[in-house]
């Protein structure tokens, strides 16, 4: 039913322009399921620590596709589509749990922990009548599996046989930063979700947008936790698929920047916190990095904001809705002081976060301004990088451009 015309015409400026229609077109959204979520990319599914025991499972999503991740009886991690091969019911509707076998509620077809169909109720009928025909082969009706890769306790899945191995996919730079945070056993301290009133890609762009961090999030620059004038930079990995933005406290020098003399229109002066502990870093990383925002293409994020460690998984919920799952953690060997510090600094993030509350607001502002579904494009000009390599500053939108380049590639746009 589709003509061969492209759904949208990308502007001739390339990824220095991003057509607004990407956030408003149902055709684009439908195509993303096939090209991005079923395409050659690794998608975060769960933390290994969420499935400590054999039989532990968790429900999640890749795009809008419901997925079961489970540690099977041999200890292996498997993932499969949570859609019964009989008539499409969610095979498992519990968020988490432990099961030896997944029995669909509708007609009790049973699937083992690898997704294999192991039981068909009344397959042989009753007293010799009814039941499944002989041509029915259970091996043709397993749950659709995903390939699995585990990197440092992070479980990823992919539908595509073309996705390269996880180490190659991540690239050495991304791996180095993952390793930095996932350097020893972690424990989960909190997990919650945030409903978003915007297309999922607006959130992913936002997380790669080093430009906004020190501007929109006034708390950051007002209280000096993160400024574009600090020592920091952007590290790209696997040709820019993934990025890390980092900075270091105690390296701030505002001279020669818009922070000087309060040139930024919205910046506040003279504010002081009654209890500065929310922003007081308890030293734990030797490299001096106090802020790491790392994205793994296409919908995953790892964060260190001082002592606040966490990951974020993005799930599209229709064209103009999304859900962001936040998981905050510490290390198993954290002492009480460190745990309390992480708890207090948790105020920085999430839907109520001192440095993230604004993202929910502003992305809603973008989606609302686009209700007209305009033909225009956004302008992504900051920074003059021509390839996606490391920069020693963050006054650039290069990581955003890199994102769109890889997105275009998958989508054929």
């Amino acid at each position, binding site marked *: 039913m589709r003509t061969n015309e492209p759904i949208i015409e990308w502007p001739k400026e390339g990824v220095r322009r991003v057509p607004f229609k990407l956030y408003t077109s149902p055709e684009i959204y439908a195509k993303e399921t096939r090209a991005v979520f079923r395409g050659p990319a690794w998608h975060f599914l769960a933390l290994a620590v969420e499935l400590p025991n054999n039989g532990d499972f968790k429900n999640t999503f890749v795009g809008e596709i419901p997925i079961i991740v489970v540690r099977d009886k041999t200890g292996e991690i498997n993932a499969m589509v949570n859609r019964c091969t009989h008539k499409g019911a969610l095979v498992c509707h519990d968020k988490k749990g432990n099961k030896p076998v997944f029995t669909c509620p509708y007609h009790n077809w049973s699937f083992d922990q690898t997704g294999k169909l192991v039981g068909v109720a009344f397959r042989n009928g009753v007293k010799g009548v009814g039941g499944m025909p002989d041509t029915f082969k259970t091996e043709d009706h397993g749950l659709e599996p995903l390939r699995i890769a585990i990197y440092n306790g992070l479980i990823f899945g992919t539908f595509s046989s073309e996705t390269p191995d996880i180490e190659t996919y991540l690239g050495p730079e991304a791996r180095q930063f993952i390793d930095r945070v996932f350097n020893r056993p972690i424990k989960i301290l*909190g997990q919650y979700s945030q*409903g978003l009133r915007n297309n999922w890609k607006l959130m992913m762009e936002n997380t790669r947008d080093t430009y906004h961090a020190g501007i929109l999030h006034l708390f950051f620059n007002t209280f000096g936790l993160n400024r574009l004038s600090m020592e920091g930079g952007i590290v790209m990995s696997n040709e820019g698929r993934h990025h890390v933005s980092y900075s270091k406290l105690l390296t701030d020098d505002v001279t020669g920047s818009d922070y000087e003399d309060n040139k930024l229109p919205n910046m506040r002066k003279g504010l002081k916190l*009654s209890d500065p502990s929310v922003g007081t870093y308890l030293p734990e990383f030797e490299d001096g990095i106090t802020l790491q925002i790392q994205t793994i293409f296409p919908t995953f994020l790892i964060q260190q904001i001082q002592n606040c460690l966490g990951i974020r998984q993005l799930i599209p919920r229709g064209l103009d809705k999304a859900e962001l799952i936040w998981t905050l953690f510490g290390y198993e060997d954290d002492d009480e002081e460190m745990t309390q510090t992480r708890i*207090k600094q*948790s105020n920085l993030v999430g839907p*109520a976060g*001192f440095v993230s509350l604004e993202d929910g607001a502003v992305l809603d502002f973008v989606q609302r301004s686009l209700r007209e579904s305009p033909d225009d494009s956004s302008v992504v000009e900051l920074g003059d990088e021509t390839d996606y390599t490391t920069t020693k500053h963050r006054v650039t939108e290069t990581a955003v451009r890199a994102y769109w380049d890889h997105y275009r590639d998958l989508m054929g746009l």
Partner: protein
Amino acid sequence: MNTRELVEDLQRRYVTQIDDGELEGWPQFFTEDGHYQIISKEALDAGQVIGFYVCTGKGMLADRILTLRKTAIYEPQSYRHMISATMIEDESDGVIIASTNFMVVRTTQDGDMTVFSAGRYRDTIVMDKDELLFKEKLVVTDSNKMDTLLAIPI
């Protein structure tokens, strides 16, 4: 007034303070070391210690309001609380353990209303100079999902 009525009186004043938008007065409902946390029942049941937000002490409570007023950017909005079914679970040595159902309707400046949160306050209340104060106010939400952003305290 019996204990339950005293607690109901406290809750009435507490939610009115918030709904009237007089957030600067909100920390006054807590003791100096007052603990305030918004966390879902699901997270609590899973033994998690981090929820949507936490304030330990009057300083952090005041900082929340300071940042809402000065650094946070979000669409103007207001809450309307309904409270119900206050139960006194324990009372001894001047410490009251009480719980109260709440529901919040959020209205944004475009006039849209949503049921923003529902759940139960789980409170530890002490008497301080003839006044009841929250030593701990746990806002236990029924949902582990927040719509868009959580600015104003619940």
